[in-house]
């Protein structure tokens, strides 16, 4: 073990953590919007709409994240028409391609988590709202969403950790996140064990923080106890 090298690599790895966190937060933000949208579509009474939402989550959960990134990054650029549109400004950047792939992926998982949360809400509280004459819109925003958030928090916490680990795939499309930087240092120093241990330690630390944050939020939102 070369402890000096481990220490020397720390600043580089830590500065790469910023990119990892940026990717994570952006994809979680867009993923949450996509997830909520598709969870609502999934619960729609129209079978075509709900089948469509199911298809989306089935495809994105059934294929590896790596394939999704490669399709977006390498695949979309191949379409001639696509390159002449304004969208090309976004899709030519590996950073945005990775973010879009991550957001679509986590969106699929989030939609499943939210859907099951919506389905397990006790019908009694919605009926109580209706009998009090509260409008459907307010029931949705003030009752269904807060209860669903509370119920899906543990599962969503796992999803955040999975997504955090998923951001390491950004290194396959040339982005210099923690894994990308670690691999770069290894290729110049030939000390894989030391560097990858350091990188793993940073990821583990982030997992630890996210895990405890979610635990805290769970306690906070649990009014019954």
């Amino acid at each position, binding site marked *: 073990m070369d402890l000096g090298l481990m220490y020397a690599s720390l600043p580089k790895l830590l500065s790469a953590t910023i990119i990892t966190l940026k990717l994570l937060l952006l994809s979680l933000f867009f993923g949450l919007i996509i997830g909520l949208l598709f969870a609502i579509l999934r619960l729609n009474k129209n079978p075509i709409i709900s089948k469509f939402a199911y298809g989306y989550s089935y*495809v994105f959960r059934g*294929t590896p994240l790596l394939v999704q990134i490669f399709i977006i990054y390498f*695949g*979309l650029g191949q379409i001639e028409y696509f390159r002449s549109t304004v969208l090309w400004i976004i899709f030519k950047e590996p950073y945005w391609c990775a973010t879009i792939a991550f957001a679509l992926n986590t969106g699929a998982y989030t939609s499943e988590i939210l859907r099951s949360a919506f389905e397990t809400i006790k019908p009694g509280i919605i009926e109580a709202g209706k009998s009090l004459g509260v409008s459907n819109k307010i029931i949705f925003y003030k009752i269904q969403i807060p209860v669903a958030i509370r119920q899906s928090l543990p599962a969503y916490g796992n999803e955040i950790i999975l997504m955090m680990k998923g951001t*390491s*795939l950004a290194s396959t499309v040339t982005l210099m996140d923690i894994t990308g930087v670690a691999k770069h240092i*290894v290729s110049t120093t030939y000390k894989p*064990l030391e560097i990858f241990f350091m990188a*793993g330690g940073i990821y*583990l630390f982030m997992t630890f923080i996210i895990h405890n944050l979610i635990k805290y939020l769970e306690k906070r939102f649990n009014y019954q106890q």
Partner: protein
Amino acid sequence: MDLLSFGKTGWGDELFYATLMTIAVSITAMLIGFLFSIIFTPLKLSNNKFLNFIGNSYTTVIRGVPELLVIYLFFFGGSGAIMYVASIFGYFEYIEINAFITGSVAIGIISGAYSTEVFRGAIKSVDEGQFEACKVLGFKKHIYFLKVIMPQMLRLAIPNLSNVWQITLKDTSLISVTGLVEIMRQSYIAAGSTRDPLFFYSFAAVLYLMITFLSMKLINRLEVKYSRGF
């Protein structure tokens, strides 16, 4: 569709063999994972604090670190570590480990962490009274585990193990970075030489979906078999 024809002009046969490779790596990794969970599940359930700590460290570390990093560690660090051990025994030649073995072991260790959690949860949900009844009846430990706890535990574990199988299957796509020719690597090669990445990566996605779909059908049958009587 010409691109998918079998023979010299198309990529059909190459992708077919790559699919078999993906399935082979996934199954091997899953089995290696079971071996790991046979070792670590008892540790996690043990009352001994030290053994407990070892079991928990394994699942926490592996599940808290990106899969890609574990694979890199094995691929770049694996042969170095083995050569170091060999040098202690006086062997100084270069040792290269087969990509299939490195990949399966790396994915297997990841898969093992997830299945350890599944088995732990399943054993914990078996009714406490079952354990006590076995003890009262004076069954030997391995017999009561195999004949009483195991069948009840498997019923609870199979639905979650099917999730682990899906995770494992998808993780094998990451071994492509080490050069093992499975679906992802083959699509990468095909996309590079035909300059048609959209088609080949989409086709790779379809292949993965097909494997998932078919394996889910099989697992559902198992589920029915093991939940007889409930």
